[in-house]
Structures are given as C-alpha cells and as structure tokens.
C-alpha cells in the first residue's frame, strides 16, 4: 500500500472541490474493494477523499414515479428497504445474491457501481494487465480466463464487471446521478459502464472529478414478473460466472415490456434491446426464450476456459425468463434453482 493523504469533506461541494484539487485522488466510502486493491498495490492513490459521511446521500426517497437511492445507502439498507422490496424486488434480489452480509453492510450503492473487475491478472501486479498497467498486455486471453468475458471484449481486455446490483439496475433502466465541477448530470445505466476497447483502464464514463450522488429508478413495472438468477462456482459468496436479471410485464401469458441484462459475461451489464423486443406481444414459451437467448449471445466468443459460458448464458437466459414469466423468482436463500 502506498503513502496517501486523506480528507473527509463536510459537504458534497467540498468533496467535488477536494477531488478537483487532487488529480490522483480516489473516492472512498465503504472501502470494501478499494482498500483491498490498495493492499494489493493495484490501486495507488496519493489522496483519498472519504465521502462516507457526506450529508444527504444516505436516504432512499420518492422521486416522481420512481425512487432515488442515495450513493451512500448501504447495499443491505437498499436490499431490505420496504419500498425497494415491494416495487423493485429484482434489485433487492440481485443485491442479496452478492457478497456476504458483512460486505453488504459496509458496501455502498455508489461504491458498488464502481467496483472493479475480479480478473486474476488485474489483481496480481507481478503479471501484465492492460487495465492495471495500460500497454503491458493481457495474459488472460491465453491464460486462466474461466471467469472472464465472452461479449464485448477487445484485444486489450477481457475483464468482466463483477457487480450483481448493477445488472438489476441495467435491467430496470436506472439513471446514475453524478455531480462535478460543472454541476449535476444524469447517466443512464446503459452508458455508465464502458466496454474495454483500447482504454480498458477506464471502467466507466464517470469523470475523474465527479462523484456519484445516487441512482434513480423509474416507475416500477416489474414487481411481479422478475428474477435474478446467478450461477457461480459455489452456492454462495462467489462472483457470477453468468447471471441474468429478467423483468417482464405480463398480461396473462402474453409478454409486454421485457428487460434482460446479463452479468459475468462482459465489461458491463449486457443488454440487447432487439432481443428484448422479440418478446413483446409473445406468449411466454421456451422456444421464444431460446430464440431470445440466441440473439443476446450473438457474437459471444470464449477464450478457452470460459467457452462454456456461451452455452451456460444461453441456458440461464431461458431459465430466468421462465422463472420471470411464471412469477417464481429465484430465491437467494434456497439454493435450489426454481
């Protein structure tokens, strides 16, 4: 861990100023990911701006037809909030599919958006990694890539975004509220995380001088027909090999609006709107689901160890859509898959 200075600004405005004055600063809240990465010598900030106690960011509030979750709301508080559970159970379920109670107690909504990949090479400074050291190379492509991406990869990086929460937020079309020196702006979830391209060191479109204020969820539409299905290498406390957030509007057996986002397969939660459109007006049916899965996985490409993810993702999409259509969402405590 390198030497760093530390500041705990008293207001959002101060925090933004603090950040602007220190280009190599990092924002810290729960610290569940950043502190690890600093110990591993992967992140080497010279200055930490602790936003953990900023006023006004710890609330869950009504926002028009939707709900606004402050950046400092813990993952636990968000998952167990009655309004979230009732109106956005997909989000609650996705959060509870991740990490452990201890981590969820410490981790924040904003921090979860910014957590970094679990690629083994990114975590090991003794190896090259374009995300950690731009230009150093990507040994993962020909190396141990079991947990890595099959969609949206680039020759420079095949990392995945590890969050469960973000997969649900993507499916729900949440909007990330941020603030910087030029004031506030909104970033739709679809644009918040990036694909690696030739700048894999950049995970998101958040500017270095901006901080996250919270996420806004639009009008709830998927409280009945949803699921978060997470497949991993043990039954709990592991990052997703593949996860699927599925949300449907149903009229009897007929599907209305549909949303599907995949986790564990790309550098960002993966959505294919044309595939979602394929469901509209259709009767919930395995064959339809299979066609949708095919469309979502179009162009998916493994790198050896992770080849199986293409088939697994296809199967997971079909199962998740079946669960959502039936209105039998995956339990996050009963490990039997519905």
């Amino acid at each position, binding site marked *: 861990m390198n030497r760093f200075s530390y500041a705990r600004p008293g207001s959002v405005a101060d925090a933004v100023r603090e950040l602007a004055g220190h280009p190599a600063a990092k924002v810290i809240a729960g610290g569940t990911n950043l502190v690890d990465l600093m110990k591993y010598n992967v992140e080497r900030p010279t200055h930490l701006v602790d936003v953990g106690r900023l006023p006004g960011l710890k609330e869950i509030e009504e926002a028009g037809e939707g709900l606004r979750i402050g950046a400092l709301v813990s993952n636990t508080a968000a998952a167990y909030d009655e309004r979230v559970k009732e109106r956005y159970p997909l989000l609650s379920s996705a959060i509870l599919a991740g990490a452990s109670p201890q981590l969820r107690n410490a981790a924040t909504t904003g921090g979860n958006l910014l957590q970094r990949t679990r690629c083994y090479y990114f975590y*090991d400074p003794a190896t090259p990694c374009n995300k950690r050291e731009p230009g150093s190379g990507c040994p993962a492509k020909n190396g141990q890539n079991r947990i890595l991406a099959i969609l949206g990869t680039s020759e420079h990086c095949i990392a995945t975004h590890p969050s469960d929460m973000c997969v649900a937020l993507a499916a729900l079309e949440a909007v990330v509220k941020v603030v910087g020196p030029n004031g506030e702006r909104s970033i739709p979830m679809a644009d918040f995380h990036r694909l690696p391209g030739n700048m894999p060191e950049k995970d998101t479109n958040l500017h270095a001088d901006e901080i996250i204020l919270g996420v806004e969820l639009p009008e709830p539409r998927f409280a009945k027909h949803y699921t978060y299905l997470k497949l991993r290498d043990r039954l709990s406390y*592991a990052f997703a090999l593949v996860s699927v957030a599925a949300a449907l509007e149903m009229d009897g057996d007929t599907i209305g609006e549909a949303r599907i986002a995949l986790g564990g397969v790309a550098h960002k939660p993966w959505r294919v709107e044309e595939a979602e459109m394929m469901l509209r007006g259709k009767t919930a049916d395995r064959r339809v689901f299979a066609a949708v899965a095919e469309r979502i996985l179009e162009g998916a490409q493994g790198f050896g160890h992770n080849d199986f993810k293409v088939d697994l993702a296809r199967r997971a999409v079909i199962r998740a859509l079946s669960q959502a259509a039936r209105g039998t969402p995956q339990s996050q405590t009963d490990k039997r898959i519905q």
Partner: protein
Amino acid sequence: MYETHVGSPRNRVDGRKKVTGTAPYAAEFTAPDLAQGYVVNSAIAKGRITAIDTKDALAVPGVIQVFTHQNRPRTAWRSTAYQDEVAPPGKPFRPLYDERIHYSGQPIALVVAEDFEIARYAASLVRVSYEAEQHQTDLTKVREQAYTPKYRTSMGPPSPRGDAEAAFGRSPVKVEGSYRIAVEHHNPMEPHASTVVWEGDGKITVHDKIQGCQNTQRYIRQVFGLSASDVHVISPYVGGAFGSGLRPQYQLFLAVMAALELKRSVRVVLTRDQMFTFTYRPDGLQEVAMAANEDGALQAIRHDLIGNTSTFEDYTEQTVGWSGMTYHCENYKGTYKVAQLDTYTPGDMRAPGAPTGLFPSESAVDELCHKLGMDPLKFRLKNYNQVDEATGKPFTSKELRAALQLGAERFGWSKRNHKPRSMKEGNELIGWGMAVGMWEAAMQKTAARAVLTIDGKLEVASASADIGTGTYTIMAQIAADALGLPIEKVTALLGDSSLPSAPVEGGSWGAASTGTAVELACHAVREKLFGYARGINDSPLGAAGVNEVQFREGRIALISDPSRFVTIQDAMVAGGVDRIEAEETASPSKITMLKYSSYAHSAAFVEVRVDEELGVVRVTRVVQAIAAGRILNPKTARSQILGGTVFGIGMALHEESMADHNLGRFMNHNIAEYHIPVNADVPNIDVIFVDEHDDLTSPIGVKGLGEIGICASPAAIANAVFHATGKRIRELPITIDKILGTKEAA
C-alpha cells in the same frame, strides 16, 4: 453412575480462549521494539535475478534493512542442514540462497521495517530484473520425463500380486479411465507467521506456525548453527494447518535470519496471496483399470499415477496403494512416477494420497457396479477383505462391514433404484452415491510429562501440537480419568520445544501417540501416589494392589468398598511431597508393526441434486460411518469428521488452484477466487462412529480421526453425480462446465 471423561462428549478445554481471542497464535506474540518483515516474491518461474535494486525501499523512513541473496547473512551451506523432520528426499529449498529462481512466488527479498505498513510499501519499491528461462509447470507436458523416485518418504506402491494384466484381459466385465484432481492449496485460516523474539546474547524465542515445535527448533539450529539452549520455540496454538505446517516454511527462515542479523525481534507474516507460494496437494495423472466376474467378484486392479514434484525434491504419496488394499483382489499392480515441474515441492495435505487415490478407484468400483447391474453396497460387501492383501498381514481391527451396514441403514440406501437418472424432483435430478475410505492408523514415539501438585491440580505436557483437532482436550480427559480428577483441575500444555519430545502432529497419529504418552505418565504418577497412600499407617486401603483401587473425585478408594479411601492430599502429605512428577515415552508396538496392518475405515453415503440444464450440483445429505477404534471425545471426534467431509466436498466440487502455464504461476491466489465450501454448500452431515475394539494399534485403543473424514467423500459425491445424471466425471472439481460438457455414459 460415574462417568469417565474419556468416551464422553466434552467441550474443548481451549474453546473459551479461542473464541475470546486470548489464545495467542504465532503472529500475535509481541516483543518490545518488534520489527516487521514483508516478503518480496519472484514474478517469474525460472531463471535468475540479474539485478535487485533496493535503494528506493531503503530510502523509505522506517525501513531497517532489505535482505536479498546479495547481502543475506551466512547460513549453513549444505542443503542437508535445511532438511527438516519430514522433508522428502532431495535438496530443500534455501531461501535467499542465490540468484536462481526455482518457482514463481519464490521469496527473493525480505523488507524489515518499524511497522508492517512501511515494510509492505517499501516491498513494492524493490525493483528486480530477471533473466527468464523456459519454465515448465504443466504436468501433461512432462509425462515422458516421469521417473520412479529412488528414495521416498511415503510408503511406495505395494508389490504387485498375481497378474493384473492377464486377469484384466480374461475378465468379462471391465472398466478403465483416466482421472485427475486439481491442485489444491491448504489455506488454513491462520496464515503462516513467525515471531522471533531477540532475547540478547544470541538467544531467541520463536513463535512459529508449525505442527511440531521441535521440528522448527531443529531446523533453526541446523540452518543457523545454534545450540538447543539458544532456540526456544513456543507455539501453543495453530489456526489450522492441514499439513501446510508440517515443514518449517520460508517465513521462519527469513524472520530468524533477520532477528539474528539485526539483533532485534522480528515478525514475518505471510499474506493470503503468499499462502499460495509454497506447498500444495500435488497434481497427478491417474489411470485406473478394474475387472470383475459376472457375479461381481473383483479380479484385477491396475492403478498408475504420474504425480508432480519440484526440481529439487522428490515428493511422493501413497495414492495408488489404496486401490489394492480396499478389497479382496488377487491381481493388483500399481505404479507411481514423478515428473519435475518448476514449482515449489508439493506436500502433505489432509490425508495425502488417500482421497486422491480413492476418487479414481472408488469411481471405478461404481462404474463396474453400473456395468454389472449390481448394488454398489453389495459389491463392497462381496469383495470385503479381512487381510491387508498388500502385505498379507491381518488388520488390527476392521469394522468397515458394520460401518457400511449402519451407514446404509441411516441413509436409506435400500430404497435406491440403482438405475442412473431414476430420481427427479422439479428441475433437479437426484443421485445417491457411496464410497469407502481408508487411512493408516499409527503411533509415533512421543513423550509426555505429568505433574500432580498437592493442591489437587494436574499438569500434563508434551511438545506435540493441537492443530485445532482437540488434542488439548483429549489429553485433559485422559489425565483426569487416570487420576480421578475433575477436568477443570487438569492443565494440558503443548507446542513448547522444552517439553518432552514429540514429532510433528500429522498423519492422524496425534491422539494415539500423545494420548498414550499422557496416560503412561499419569499412570506413573498414580503408582507413586498409590505407594504413598498405602504407606499411611493403618491405611484404609489395607494391602490392596493398585488394580484393586479406583481413582475418583480426588480419592484413592477400594473398588470393593469405596467408603475406604485416602485423599490425594493425604497421600502426598504422608509421602512428604507436594508434587509428583513423571515423564514417560509411548512407542508403537513392534509386534503390531511386524504382524499387523492398521487402518481406520469409513463409508460415506451422499445425496446430490443436480440441475442438469444449468449444471449446478448441490450436496444435500451426507452420512459418514466411521470405524476408527475408540472414540475419546464424541464431540471433538464428530467435528473432525465434519471438517474432513467439508474438505471432501471442497475437493469434489470447488477447490482448484489454477495455474497459468505461460507465466508458470498460480493465478487465483486469494480465497475470493480459490473456492472452498461455504455454509450454503454444506448440508446436514450425519456422523456415525461404529464400535471398534482395537488394543493393537495403540494402548488406548485409538486409531485417529484427522484424515479419515475426507477419504471417501469426494468419490461418494462423484458417484452420486453419476447416479443423478448418468455422467461419469473423472476430473475434480465437478464444476458447472464439466456437468454441461460431459456426455452420459452408455
């Protein structure tokens, strides 16, 4: 009724200390002016260091010294000096010896600083240039270079008997398969650590994470040329080890080196990542072939293995011997070769070689049963052996038959439809599988001391270790019974090199060895005490012999008339002593070793549920029936079997150290990515201890439990997966991709 401590469930005597954080582990001992070391590890797998620049690291305020191969103090130059009590044949790795890199993760520098954070930061500033050479870490690429090691510390494969090839050829029902189990790292909860306290005048006190403190002491003496009186090792608690603490590890060398050189106390703790930079359960390419007659009589067993070792030591396990010992079979042949890789030397990990060898052989038995259309339980009873056919010697005891029967009954095995894919509920196929396990039961020469004081307190002590198994507790139970004292009056001491000699605790021999030594020492105290009691004028005990009295509740009383007694205090007063001390050594019986074979046995029954479409496997039920001699403490004994079973679940479904062969390096070196079972993966585990009388293995009737729990479980799980899905998976761990990617057997 009077209840003895031995045989009764007892809480751990060290339990309160452990859960309240007052049981000190190696990294928790402290000393005035303690400096902290942080290790720098090699980024390449093979080659040499061409330059190592420590300037920036040394410039960090608070850094005391950076040790490398260029400035390390002189230590023993002969590699034999580095050979510890359980070193395999070869030339042990010598930390910071020269510029050569033997494996990725090799320690190449130690930064010593005023605090841990400074040391860690400065370590990141050490710049190393390498000249890399072509390395090899992939066992499949060196098959052809495999050789039969000249010397081995583990038992070699048993001699061939009969003619396995011919019998295989002529038998009507046969199976053959290639098997592999992923490399595993031990990952005990407590990382390896050494705190070396500088006592002045060249003397040190060492707190080391080790399964035998005298092994550490001997290693330090040999390597640093110190005398026994200069090195005192005190390591009373071990936070799990599973074999990783049998041999002194590099952090010990580095901490001692730094302390002696700086004349200052030094602590070196390995990070979780660094726990992947030394020993591990080896890789192995196994081939098993079995054949039977139509009636299920086993005719032939062949078991061949190519295992990996390092370039500097020949590490071997028993592995291929188990298949030849489990059943009656006249034709057996096993071979064991090793091939060298540019890695650290693999080492013993809980039941080394046993689940590794039994997974293929018990899978083959299951496959054979499937071909025969035979109940796997019936097959095992039909081919039951009462004699160890590898040696021709009878077993000291073997109640595996009872274990099979009781286990099957508890599990409900008789309701099994032997056809694969015959049970389904919702999306899940249900499978029931079984396997048997074996582990050697042995004693090692071990000494113990007992001291009884006039206040009615008893202290028993040995230099052995309690690696979390409950050794302290069984020592206290045995001692309390021997002298008829409440268990609260007994103090057990372990993990101190100044205590009576003991080997490393491992191999499941701890309870039999330390327990017997404690009992012998307590009996010696009892003899003396009885002598004093008899010596009292008009002793209430009259002319009774020692066998005619009982030691209970602080009294020595006539068995025939317990109202006639002498208290311990009165006896000691009469003898004019305020303490009675005795030291005894327990040794394995030569007759037993010569004439018998001694093993613990297990039968594991497992239910799995497999979501076939998604490849998700859940273990939902386990029954483990254990025949392991006398059970000293059913509570801690059960915990040992639970732990072993969980280890087995890990081997079957989760654990895998993934190497990048391009880099020659294990990559998932943290416990977020190296998966061990979590609560959700562990179902209800039902443990049965079968009555088994055995006074040949050890005088106290004990066979040991540390390892038998893991032996059968991986194979039983794999067999249950087959029963559920019809898929025979021959590579562990059984992960989602393997379920999806394996075809159903014909």
